[in-house]
């Protein structure tokens, strides 16, 4: 029997460290022989960069995929999803079916998005089609709501115009890149407030795709009432749900402006009915899986890697979910006591799946943990299992026919059921 797992991290968070220590793992530095490294995204860049020449051995595991940014950078995510849709369309897949307006029936889950300055002209064309619309500008490489602003006039983004004399065309470094997306100005409001959903998804392998959804996601509410009024476009407390932003407003440290997903489910079932609520949650699971499938072909499916993503989803007032972005390094900071417990358990369950039995890992294992260790995770999609059942079930379920036996019911998520479509 091998010795204890040696761990390293460059993220000093108690929810991580407590989990390592409770397993009796031994802390080491990155220069020593380590088995498990929980890295920040900067570090993973270095580890897998060509110059580093790092070779991970069989008993080493890290918490990011080398090119996770294909999913977690806002512009690349959109690019990959667009590519995926076109491919499906080309091969005539029924998934890529469009409606009479040319909108994808099943794959329209990302708001219309353009890269700036690259797609500036395309964007202008789209903008002019509905000039009263609002758009949201997001820097590609930043997080926590930094640098985001809303616009409703072309003049507000003049400097991204390629023809503009003031454009920073010359220094087209990645850092200047922005995405501009159609702003969802009709979000579902509860108690008059806007909120978004944060869901955690663990991917242990991309090919075959095996991913798990954490049952205990949460909603993040804005502290201020929502108004689409143009006078409040600058008020980030109204529009951005990031805790990093809301923390500076009228923030409450007991509940942290957060609701569990089961509260959301109870509220929606009570006020809207069971069918539409179940349909909403099914759609949410669907879009997560589709986004992973979209990047799977370009992902470096390094067997030393797993990753726990933070998915941000907004629901509009027609109960349609929209994928806003995927975070590679979801915040492990706790803003309330409940939060700390949730994140502690999240890491705990993640480690149980990624590092079986808490023993020294062997990256050659089949990455199929037994059901008992899943904890609060549920299998979201298992490509190996799915392929056994045939691909036509996928289409039938998308067309609204019966979805087959429920994969599993759980009390905690208010019986959020994961469907068995493929």
């Amino acid at each position, binding site marked *: 029997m091998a010795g204890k797992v040696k761990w390293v991290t460059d993220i000093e968070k108690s929810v991580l460290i407590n989990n390592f220590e409770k397993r009796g793992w031994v802390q080491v530095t990155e220069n020593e022989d380590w088995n498990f490294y929980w890295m920040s995204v900067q570090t993973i860049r270095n580890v897998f960069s060509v110059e580093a020449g790092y070779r991970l051995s069989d008993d080493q595991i890290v918490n990011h995929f080398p090119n996770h940014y294909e999913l977690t950078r806002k512009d690349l995510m959109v690019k990959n999803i667009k590519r995926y849709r076109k491919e499906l369309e080309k091969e005539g897949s029924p998934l890529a079916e469009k409606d009479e307006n040319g909108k994808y029936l099943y794959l329209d889950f990302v708001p219309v998005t353009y890269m700036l300055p690259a797609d500036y002209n395309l964007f202008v064309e789209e903008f002019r089609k509905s000039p009263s619309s609002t758009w949201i500008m997001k820097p590609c490489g930043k997080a926590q709501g930094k640098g985001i602003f809303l616009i409703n006039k072309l003049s507000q983004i003049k400097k991204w115009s390629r023809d503009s004399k003031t454009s920073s065309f010359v220094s087209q470094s990645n850092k200047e890149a922005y995405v501009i997306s159609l702003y969802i100005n009709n979000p579902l409001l*509860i*108690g*008059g*407030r806007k909120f978004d959903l944060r869901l955690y998804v663990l991917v242990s392998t991309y090919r075959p795709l095996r991913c798990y959804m954490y049952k205990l996601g949460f909603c993040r*509410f804005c502290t*201020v*009432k929502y108004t689409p009024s143009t006078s409040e476009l600058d008020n980030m407390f109204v529009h951005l749900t990031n805790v990093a932003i809301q923390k500076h407003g*009228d923030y*409450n440290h*007991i*509940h942290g*402006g*957060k*609701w*569990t997903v*089961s*509260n959301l489910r*109870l*509220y929606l*079932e*009570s*006020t809207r*009915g*069971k069918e539409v609520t179940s349909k909403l949650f099914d759609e949410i699971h669907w879009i997560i899986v589709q986004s992973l499938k979209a990047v799977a072909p370009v992902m470096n499916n390094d067997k030393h890697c797993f990753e726990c993503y933070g998915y941000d989803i907004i629901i509009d007032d027609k109960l349609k979910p929209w994928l806003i972005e995927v975070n590679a390094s979801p915040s492990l900071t706790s803003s309330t006591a*409940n939060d700390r417990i949730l994140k502690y358990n999240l890491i705990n369950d993640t480690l149980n799946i990624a590092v079986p039995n808490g023993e020294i890992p062997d990256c050659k294992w089949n990455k199929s943990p037994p059901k008992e260790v899943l904890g609060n995770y549920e299998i979201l999609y298992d490509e190996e299992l799915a392929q056994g059942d045939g691909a036509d079930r996928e289409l039938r379920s998308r067309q609204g026919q019966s979805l087959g036996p429920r994969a599993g*019911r*759980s*009390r905690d998520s*208010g019986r959020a059921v994961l469907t068995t479509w493929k």
Partner: protein
Amino acid sequence: MLQEESDLSLIIAQIVQKLKGSNLYSQLERQAWASLQRPEIKLESLKEDIKEFFKISGWEKKLQNAVYSELSVFPLPSHPAAPPEHLKEPLVYMRKAQGSWEKRILKSLNSMCTELSIPLARKRPVGEQKELLNKWNEMGTDEPDLSLFRPVYAPKDFLEVLINLRNPNYENGDSLSFRTHLGLIQVPLKVKDIPELKECFVELGLNIGQLGIDDSTQVPPELFENEHVRIGQKVLAEQDSAAAQQYIRQGSPTALRAELWALILNISSQPEDVLYYEQLKTNVIQHDLLVDSLIYKDVKLTASNDDYYFVFEDYLYQVLLCFSRDTSVLSHFAFNSASPPKSYIRGKLGLEEYAVFYPPNGVIPFHGFSMYVAPLCFLYHEPSKLYQIFREMYVRFFFRLHSISSHPSGIVSLCLLFETLLQTYLPQLFYHLREIGAQPLRISFKWMVRAFSGYLATDQLLLLWDRILGYNSLEILAVLAAAVFAFRAVNLMEVTSLAAAEKKNHLRELKSMYLDDIVKIHGLFWLF
């Protein structure tokens, strides 16, 4: 037999009298007139034909529901010669105790008024009115200085009053015997014992399917849940109050709950109801009441800090501020042992012509009052409907939780029921807790006064309130409180002080408890 018949005809006469003044009556009249144009209505058989028409068009059902509603609320039959106070509360000593408690509350309110030099009521200047109207949907963002306000009373103050209640006609002797009641409540009220509870709450028996238990993971939906939902949909289609009340004893499916509660409480949002609510809103805009600040403070202290209800903060103001001004609530004082506080126009103290009820609805809110409204926000998001449902819940049930009376659903009886259950069936635990100075009632009182709102997770709380509506009784609160103690008995036996009993997760963790943990494992009444 003759007595029963005359009782019945008296009740019928009273209900008819009451309904004659209602909106339903005028609607029925209108419908009857309009029906004369229909071909099937013939002059020779006018009465029968109209009756038949009412039956087919669903109006008879509406009348049935209204009558059923009156019967649910109607006080217990009493002697025809009994004075109106007896309807409020038959026992003199209880009436007296309630009276002096009210005096204390009013004194406290008046002294706060004088200390802070704030009038009980004042008309808002026009500018302020406009501002409030603009902010109507986000009153929570207002940050008035409430530091000087304190709640008029908290549940624990009320508990002290109940502990000191004594029946002057009752002598239980100085010597302790096995019959001595060891709890805090020392009045001899009749409460149900386990066999009687079992009979009364027969649908909660182990052999009958329950939502909250039989729809959880291990039980396949075909066995109970699907059929139960189907029946619920049928009940709603029939729009039958009585059937709904019977149905909900086994718990309501989440998606049907809002409609079922409205049906049982006989609430249908008519245009006049919406108008009435708007009128109340106008009253709020025009006049500022001292109790408004108490309401603000209460919401900020309780619901705003609650994981489940903080989202609905603004709805709470919209409901409670209007509630304070709703004089239709005054009618429930006919069967409430409490009486609305009276205040006098400035300078006219003691002159009856210048007396007004204060607040206009006669209900002074206490610490935690807003938690009666909060859970309802999960079901209704239209303010006037939410308002109606809350008002009806208050005048049927919640008022009993903070007034002194001998009613079986009154808080005194609930406390006694709780203590008796514990002492009879868990004597060792009861004795141990008493010895360490942790009288069980001191812990469970606040749960019962709030009908467990804020103490149970919302989905579990709604299942509990389903049963309150189903059985038209609050006794289930006492039984649940006792069941919680029984469920945690093992841990509680190890505790050595009141603080420890409350602090330790055993009881703080109510929020993560599922009714089925308590009910299924033991069966609510087979617990004992």
